[in-house]
């Protein structure tokens, strides 16, 4: 292959290094107004009265809107009906800190901020529901009309009672994972503008422009064709820009004022009002033979979805499906509960429920290994899924299952690291090596998530690609250019990719579930093939051969087994002379089988990615302070379309995993966020990353993927925290079941021993 698999430079790198890339806050329009949102400081309260009169009178204020000013639908929700439970502007009740109540548009940011302070809201405080376990009982208030337990995903396979009865060893554990913040560098921002024919355009950062279009259309009561959403260069998302943030608010204000309106969040507002990773409480029970063969897994997973559903039940479903870990388990019983509280809204965050459950399933494997006197990697190898395995949902795995390969590669490296540790001097600093493995189903869990694409091969052999796929920093624009270029026999530089502008690009799923290379990539490939085949058809006719004999080579179309050839440019010109255009369209949707509501049986994904990480840490036994000395990632990616891009995702994933393991915890006390700034919520800096980082891939073609590719974005970040926690245990015998493993927690665990 000429383009796919090559380290092509990112097509958006130049504009980013020169400061020319336009993020939403960089946009300016004439007569632009500035917006600000009034948000509830209380996590649970009735709204008795909202008085906007003083705010409206302030000089320079152009609009002050509340729920009653919404012309169309008043509620939104990522999963759509029946889960649209989140008000665009709170009307009778607020259910979390940061719930929006009023929005203002004014001539300047300062005036908008003043106006917000003048809006008077009378609240009747209600008891907040902040304890996740208590939230499930009948003794606490209801966050919404129905019960607080809003979802229950069941996975049932075989019979766990019999499985445990047969087991020689049973390991139990309780694990708790905290609230986490995406902490993308770009705070949310957007601009909306009406034109004089009733069309509205919204420029904003988002993972899902088509969903934004749909919600704005519903809220403003416009038909979809009158709403254009243009995705701006997005400064990171990690799942936190999948939900509506600024979009409906600026649309409403632009609609009412007839002027362009910009809204930019400050950092505390971004942390406080947008979504978080779901905290989980997990009770896990594993039964195995004394040879280390897994017989039964039973787990109860409780996820705090906060005030609104957002992706809640989808996150808990994914966690339930993957709860066994990448291992063969004949008897499985998983119950995953999605629970409303008045805490911050839980939604997608890189890993979508799997990072939390992986902490549990990997700690369980380590405990099992220790109990049986087995090597932690050996026990994983013994149980690893492979071609021919059936998952807990009964899905038969038929191809591209490389968890064993990742473990085998990790094992070689782990032995070297452990040997070095044995040779090193003992001091109050102890070193240890840990391993973590994971699996991740690509694409949305058992429901349709298609992407469409248009490709046009232009007269000079260059090409246009139009795709709804939102680039959020992960490199999808470049990947799509490479896929099209490969199919069209040209270079990536000759392909212009226009993405995520609903006025131009067709429908595409949101960027998430590590699925854009696989799904949007397939759509682009199919569209490019049609454009190519149109060209080939004419050339074949002219040459008197069949289309299947033709191939591209070095700027020409050649014929297998013949000297005949024609320059691509000439072949295109030939088509044009006959009035033939070389256009293609494509769409792709993974063919999944949704889960049975009682047993969880189904085939929720058409392909899975697998990975194993190794970590070596050094723990100071006097202070509990932990340094990560080495990280290694072994990822099964199907095919790396762009190896530099894949490495970048893997290295970035390691940093997020390290943060999850050692430092990231959003402190929420009685539903109020106590750490809303980046000085309080710490994410890894360059100083926290070890010098010794190695990332490697296994490429075994996924037949249904574009050129064999699967997905890597989330797999990159999931096994790291389990590996680091395992390494801490190996170093000092302290098991941290409630990450992050801060120095205080490690020291306390050492002292408890």
């Amino acid at each position, binding site marked *: 292959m000429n383009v796919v698999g090559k*380290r092509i430079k990112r097509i958006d790198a130049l504009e980013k290094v020169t400061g020319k890339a336009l993020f939403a806050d960089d946009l300016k329009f004439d007569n632009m107004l500035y917006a600000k949102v009034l948000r509830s400081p209380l996590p649970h309260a009735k709204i008795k009265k909202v008085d906007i009169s003083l705010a409206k009178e302030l000089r320079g204020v152009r609009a002050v809107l509340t729920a009653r000013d919404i012309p169309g639908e008043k509620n939104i929700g990522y999963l759509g009906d029946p889960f649209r439970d989140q008000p665009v502007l709170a009307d009778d009740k607020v259910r979390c800190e940061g719930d929006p109540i009023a929005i203002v548009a004014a001539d300047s940011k300062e005036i908008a901020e003043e106006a917000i302070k003048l809006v008077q809201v009378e609240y009747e405080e209600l008891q907040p529901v902040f304890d996740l376990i208590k939230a499930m009982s009948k003794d606490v208030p209801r966050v919404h009309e129905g019960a607080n337990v809003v979802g229950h995903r069941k996975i049932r396979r075989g019979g766990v009672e019999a499985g445990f009865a047969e087991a020689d060893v049973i390991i139990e554990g309780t694990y708790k994972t905290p609230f986490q913040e995406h902490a993308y560098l*770009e705070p949310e921002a957007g601009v909306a503008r009406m034109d004089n024919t009733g069309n509205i355009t919204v420029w904003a950062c988002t993972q899902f422009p088509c969903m934004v279009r749909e919600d704005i259309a519903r809220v403003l009561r416009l038909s979809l064709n009158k709403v254009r959403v243009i995705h701006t260069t997005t400064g990171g998302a990690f799942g936190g820009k999948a939900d509506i943030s600024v979009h409906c608010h600026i649309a409403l204000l632009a609609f009412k004022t007839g002027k362009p309106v910009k809204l930019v969040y400050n950092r505390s507002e971004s942390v406080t009002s947008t979504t978080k990773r779901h905290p989980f409480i997990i009770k896990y029970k594993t039964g195995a033979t004394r040879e280390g063969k897994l017989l039964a897994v039973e787990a109860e997973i409780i996820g705090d979805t906060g005030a609104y559903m957002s992706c809640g039940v989808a996150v808990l479903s994914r966690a339930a499906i993957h709860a066994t870990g990448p291992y063969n388990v004949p008897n499985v019983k998983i119950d995953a509960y999605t629970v409303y509280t008045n805490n911050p809204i839980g939604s997608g965050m890189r890993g979508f429920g799997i990072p939390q459950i992986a902490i549990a399933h990997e700690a369980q494997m380590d405990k099992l290994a220790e109990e049986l006197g087995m090597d932690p990697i050996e026990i994983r190898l013994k149980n690893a899924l492979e071609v021919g395995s059936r998952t807990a949902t009964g899905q038969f795995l038929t191809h591209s299952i490389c968890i064993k390969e990742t473990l085998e590669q990790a094992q070689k490296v782990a032995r070297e690291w452990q040997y070095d540790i044995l040779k090193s001097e003992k001091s109050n600093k102890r070193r240890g090596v840990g391993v973590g493995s994971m699996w991740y189903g690509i694409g949305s869990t058992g429901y349709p998530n298609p992407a469409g694409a248009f490709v046009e091969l232009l007269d000079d052999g260059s090409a246009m690609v139009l795709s709804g796929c939102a680039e959020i920093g992960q490199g999808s624009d470049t990947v799509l250019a490479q896929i099209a270029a490969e199919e069209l026999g040209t270079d990536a530089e000759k392909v212009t990719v226009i993405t995520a502008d609903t006025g131009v690009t067709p429908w595409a799923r949101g960027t998430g579930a590590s699925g854009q290379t696989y799904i949007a990539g397939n759509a682009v490939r199919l569209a490019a093939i049609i454009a190519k085949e149109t060209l080939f058809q004419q050339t074949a006719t002219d040459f008197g051969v069949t289309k299947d004999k033709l191939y591209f080579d070095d700027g020409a179309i050649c014929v297998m087994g013949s000297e005949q050839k024609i320059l691509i440019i000439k072949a295109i010109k030939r088509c044009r002379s006959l009035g033939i255009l070389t256009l293609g369209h494509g769409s792709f949707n993974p063919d999944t089988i949704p889960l049975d509501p009682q047993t969880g049986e189904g085939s929720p994904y058409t392909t899975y990615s697998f990975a194993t990480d190794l970590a070596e840490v050094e723990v100071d036994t006097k202070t509990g302070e932990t340094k990560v000395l080495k990280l290694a990632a072994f990822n099964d990616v199907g095919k790396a379309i762009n190896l530099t891009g894949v490495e970048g995702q893997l290295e970035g994933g390691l940093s997020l995993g390290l943060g999850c393991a050692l430092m990231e915890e959003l402190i929420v006390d009685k539903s109020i966020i106590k750490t809303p700034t980046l000085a309080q919520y710490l994410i890894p800096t360059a100083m926290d990353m070890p010098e010794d980082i190695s990332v490697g891939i296994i490429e075994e073609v996924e037949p249904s993927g574009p050129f064999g590719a699967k997905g890597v974005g989330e797999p990159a970040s999931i096994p790291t925290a389990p590996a680091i926690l395992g390494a801490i245990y190996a170093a000092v015998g302290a098991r941290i079941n409630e990450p992050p493993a801060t120095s205080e927690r490690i020291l306390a665990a050492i002292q408890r021993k």
Partner: protein
Amino acid sequence: MEVRVDFRVNGQDVGLDVNPMATLLDVLREQLDLTGTKRGCDAGDCGACTVIMNGKAILSCLTPVLQADGKKIITVEGLAQEDKLHPLQEAFIECGAVQCGFCTPGMLLSAKALLDQNPSPTQEEVKVTISGNLCRCTGYKKIIDAIMLASKSTKK
């Protein structure tokens, strides 16, 4: 009440009437239309607003614009000379050090301030230099590789 301030940005002299409470970041982005410098937190926690003032990397979100009076400022827009990219910009592209791009301008300026003072830094010195520039995408490895690569080409 506005106040006059004069300074040099990317080689050009500017004289502006500014709100005395404004930060250098505010003025660069809003009055000078130099939107390459980013606002990540407005609190000095993330480093996205890093520019160079009289040779030193500073956080423009914490710098009152009046402090820039009489000084020389370099922003990301001033790195390339006409059509020629700065070696750091070339290296960032070459090494795959750019993902979402939001931290990139701040990283480039922190790195330039280092290389202008210390043309042959060690890996550790580079890490310390960018320790105040947060990145959520890259894990820092390719950024460090890029700065080390650029240091080799600036030496020539």
